[in-house]
């Protein structure tokens, strides 16, 4: 208990300390000192968090809920900053600090020539701090703090190259979309306080059964009433939709690729975007009682899964392809949550963190090699020049599409099986959608590999002359990530199915799709592997691979022919289904116009023009008329005096 407390404090303080030191000293620190400070502190953080995880695994530690200090105390509501450490948060901090450490090291190479070197290390350490605070939170206020802190760091890091207009645009867009989600999130928190009179997870979860029993309704209008629990769950999920980039709040993630590649790996693939998944898993005691919210997650998740995978097919920018694949994989996780397979969702989150970070870092290595050109059609046959990168990228892609044996296979198959077991209304359709998506995933992953790393060389001559394997500090992280991408699945699957998360995740027996998989279909990791070769997803994989081989290896003219024949479809896909156009051509100008109307008509014309200056002017005008009475001629005044006297006289005599 006591040692756990110290470890937890070390986990969050180490990256914070690194960020503060490097942030305050900034250019006063030499480059090497800046990365030494942050990387060694990240190593400390990773050491502490992995020992927490190991402690939980060997049963030395038990769930603890400790408050660090009281943040704010208002009436009977006390909000503290503290940690909830259980198997869920232990796994999360381990994976976050692991990927963060790898990305820190990789950045030494990738950011080598950047003028903002120190600032970069400050930001990623600060980001890690925020993410750790988020996953270790024991109450909603702190969860929101971490939630916003990672959003902020994402904003700062997308706009890291602040001279690039596109980067500034993308960063603001990301922040704005995330704040739309936060509106929902804050309302959800307010509703939690309203119904539970507390923001502390433990107190809230303890009262759920009473709330379910009374089932209070929240009046939206006089006639429409919603069950409170569904309202809370949906509001919180809106927050998750923005952070985990689900349709229609996904538009910021592809644009976020304007940031440096290590950031795309750390924030926009492995950690921050999974915060929504984590949050829903953490709130599983709430979500279990709202089938409305679960069904909504199934729908949103499966739509995101399919449509974002389709978009990946037409992208030519290597980072954007991987970004759309992230969106699609996040869709898988959300579908898993919708099917109450929280454990499967988190499992996929962990494996995805490894292989997606690998893919991004590998892409970064390729981008460096071809001098910052991100178009895959300007690459080609890279495996000849950079075999380590090519092989690790291949491993990453195999894990991504779920090739039997890789880590992605175990987590994705578990999700597909769980959704098949689910009895919610939409689950059958969702099952076929995510199954079909495997085919598309395979297609775009194979396309990426074939076009960029095989086939003919398309880069400029001077670029090709300098092609070589990147520096050691770049390829070592690739290998470090490739290992878990291959083996993590087989190591973890058995324990995930055997109640790995203990009491951290709550599932109603009727919803427990993961347990159904375990009892019906699971006979150990090895037989699951073998079974993987005869299952439906593998058929999809084979089909996808054949298609990609046909299109990009055998008949390279084929994609062009298809594009020419199906112009409308191509246009829709290139316009990304029109979400961006809708936002930029309708919502944004309309908001500005509304603002201008409010200002010019409301403030300037009505309030200032008519009411304020109007009053002043009419006073002036009346005075202008009255002043004519003051002629200055004595006889005028005498005349008025006499006339007045006469009038008075008449009045007193006759009335």
């Amino acid at each position, binding site marked *: 208990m006591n040692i756990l407390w110290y470890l937890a404090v070390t986990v969050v303080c180490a990256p914070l300390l690194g960020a503060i030191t490097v942030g305050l000293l900034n250019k006063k620190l030499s480059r090497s000192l800046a990365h030494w400070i942050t990387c060694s502190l990240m190593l400390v953080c990773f050491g502490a968090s992995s020992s927490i995880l190991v402690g939980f695994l060997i049963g030395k530690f038990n769930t603890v809920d400790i408050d660090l200090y009281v943040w704010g105390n208002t009436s009977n509501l006390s909000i503290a900053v503290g940690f909830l450490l259980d198997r869920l948060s232990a796994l999360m901090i381990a994976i976050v600090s692991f990927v963060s450490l790898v990305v820190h090291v990789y950045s030494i190479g990738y950011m080598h020539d950047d003028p903002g070197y120190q600032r970069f290390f400050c930001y990623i350490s600060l980001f890690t701090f925020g993410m750790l605070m988020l996953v270790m939170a024991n109450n909603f206020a702190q969860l929101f703090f971490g939630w916003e802190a990672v959003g902020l760091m994402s904003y700062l890091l997308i706009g890291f190259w602040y001279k690039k207009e596109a980067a500034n645009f993308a960063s603001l867009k990301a922040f704005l979309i995330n704040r739309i989600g936060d509106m929902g999130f804050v309302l959800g928190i307010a509703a939690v306080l309203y119904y539970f009179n507390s923001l502390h997870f433990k107190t809230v979860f303890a009262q759920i059964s009473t709330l379910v029993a009374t089932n209070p309704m929240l009046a939206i209008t006089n006639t429409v009433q919603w069950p409170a629990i569904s309202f809370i769950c949906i509001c919180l999920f809106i927050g998750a939709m923005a952070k985990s980039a689900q349709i229609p709040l996904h538009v910021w993630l592809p644009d976020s690729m304007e940031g440096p590649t290590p950031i795309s790996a750390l924030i926009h693939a492995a950690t921050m975007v999974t915060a929504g998944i984590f949050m829903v898993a953490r709130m599983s005691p709430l979500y279990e009682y709202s089938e409305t919210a679960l069904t909504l997650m199934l729908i949103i998740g499966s739509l995101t899964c399919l449509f974002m995978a389709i978009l990946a097919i037409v992208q030519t920018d290597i980072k954007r392809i991987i970004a759309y694949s992230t969106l699609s994989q996040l869709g898988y996780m959300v579908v898993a949550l919708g099917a109450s397979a929280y454990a499967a969702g988190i499992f996929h989150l962990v494996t995805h963190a490894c292989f997606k970070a690998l893919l991004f870092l590998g892409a970064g290595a390729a981008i460096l090699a071809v001098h910052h050109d991100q178009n895959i059609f300007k690459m080609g046959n890279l495996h000849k020049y950079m075999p380590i990168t090519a092989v690790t990228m291949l491993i990453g892609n195999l894990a991504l599409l779920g090739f039997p044996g890789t880590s992605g296979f175990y987590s994705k198959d578990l999700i597909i099986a769980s959704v098949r077991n689910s009895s919610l209304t939409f689950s059958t359709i969702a099952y076929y959608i995510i199954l079909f998506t495997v085919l598309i995933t395979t297609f775009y992953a194979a396309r990426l590999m074939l076009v960029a790393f095989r086939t003919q060389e398309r880069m400029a001559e001077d670029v090709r002359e300098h092609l070589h394997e990147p520096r050691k500090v770049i390829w070592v992280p690739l290998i470090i990530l490739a290992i878990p991408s291959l083996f993590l699945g087989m190591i973890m699957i058995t324990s995930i199915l055997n109640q790995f998360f203990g009491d951290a995740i709550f599932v109603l027996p009727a919803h427990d799709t993961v347990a159904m998989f375990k009892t019906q279909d699971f006979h150990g990791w090895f037989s699951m592997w073998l079974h993987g070769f005869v299952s439906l997803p593998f058929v999809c994989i084979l089909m996808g691979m054949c298609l990609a081989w046909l299109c990009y290896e055998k008949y390279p003219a084929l994609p062009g022919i298809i594009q020419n024949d199906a112009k409308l479809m191509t246009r829709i896909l290139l316009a990304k289904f029109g979400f961006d156009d809708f936002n930029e051509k309708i919502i944004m100008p309309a908001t500005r116009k509304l*603002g201008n109307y409010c200002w010019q008509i409301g403030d300037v014309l009505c309030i200032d023009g008519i009411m304020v200056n109007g009053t002043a002017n009419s006073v002036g005008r009346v005075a202008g008329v009255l002043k004519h009475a003051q002629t200055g001629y004595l006889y005028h005044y005498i005349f008025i005096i006499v006339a007045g006297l006469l009038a008075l006289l008449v009045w007193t005599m006759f009335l």
Partner: protein
Amino acid sequence: MTAQLNILSLIIWTPVLAGLMFLLLARHVTLSNKLRYAPLLISLLSVAYITFAFYNFTLNTAQMQLQEHIMWMPTLGIEYALGVDGFAILLTALTIFMTLLVILAAFTHVKREQFLTYCASFLIMQGLMCGVFLATDAILFYVFFEAMMIPMFLIIGIWGAENRIYATFKFMLYTLFGSLFFLIALLYLHKVATSNGLIGTESFAIASFQNLTLDLATQKWLFWAILIAFAVKIPMWPVHTWLPDAHTEAPTGGSMILAAITLKIGGYGMLRFLLPIVPAGCAFFANTIIILSLVAIAYISLITLVQQDLKKLVAYSSIAHMGFVTLGLFVACKVITVNNGPQIAVTGIDGAVLQMLAHGFISGAMFLCVGILYVRMHTRAINQYGGVVNTMPLYASFLMLFALANVGMPGTIGFVGEFFVILATFKAGFWYALIASSSLVLGVAYTLWMYKRVVFGEVVNHAVTALSDLSINEKIACALLAAAVILFGVWPNPLLNVMRGSSQQLAMQLSK
């Protein structure tokens, strides 16, 4: 309560007297050059006073503390009575802190020959505003309330920009219009108090006004009479249009004090007069005021979005933020009767007061930052800027922090008040909370869009290329503000502890 040291009087009169003295001495050029650091010393002395007051302040009570009573007009029962409670001490501290920053910034922002007069005006202003917060006699409050307008009138009129005359007159007429009704209300309350047998000094004490029992019809008209005075000050929609003009035309220090302190006097007046004296009236009109506050939040945020003038943008965002203050207070009035109401009401009041303090720091910081650019470039137009980060990286970092606080980012003080108010508002109604939370999105839109246009990007013109980063006095001022913004963001509890007694008592007064 015979305090050995009349600390509250010292807080009020030291800066006023010192300021008057500086005004007299300012004509002697050689002398005034020698006195360059004197205003700073007076300001630091005030900091020492307020620290001493905090040291002697007892927590968890709503009692007026460190009281002072001197008979002023015995025949009328008007007293020079001072005292401090949780709300007053925090706002007094804020006043002293902001004036210190104004004087610090003035070292490079004001011409050398005008420096002493400029600082003197702000010192006088500081003393009078502290008087508003510390007075416990209604007439004394009123006197300070009106007197404080004089230095501000002069500050805008003398050191303001091109259109300053229009702005000062608008500002003065608006506020005088409001306070007239307030005076009538005070006289009426005095009449009721005397007819209830309260004689002597009690007949004008704010505390005795708060204990009167008034019937609903009386409370209704008193509500509007009192509200108008403070609604103009805070300012509430639709009596807010003086603010963008006054802020835009005022010099940097003027805008800082206007935004950081004088707006708070509106909120403070509501805490002291409106809510405790006419609680039933407040509850009766709570829905109206909540809706006006929401209009201020949503409509003004939209207006803020399209501003092309840096100062106007910050000024409009002030109105939107002060909307949360009135929202929190009147949500407290509305929910007080429902189940669990008093507790939610305390959250609402705490949120409103925290929002006042937060806005004090943040708007002060934002106006300071705009001023820092203005003295270098002599323009407030956003389109004249771009790429400032390339030449002023330190400034850009500070402005980013303050902008984030303006957005209400958790971890900065801007978050706490907004968060509490939204939590409380949900109790008053789902739609209210939904509209209030729209500021989460709009706040980011107007603040960070402005930041993007001014700070990020390539350098747009030679004027920006020639910019020099913060001077030492600006660095100190920004660092002090940054420290406050972060410290109370990650640990607002000390503030909440100080105000707890007072906000609980106010909730009790509301429920009576």
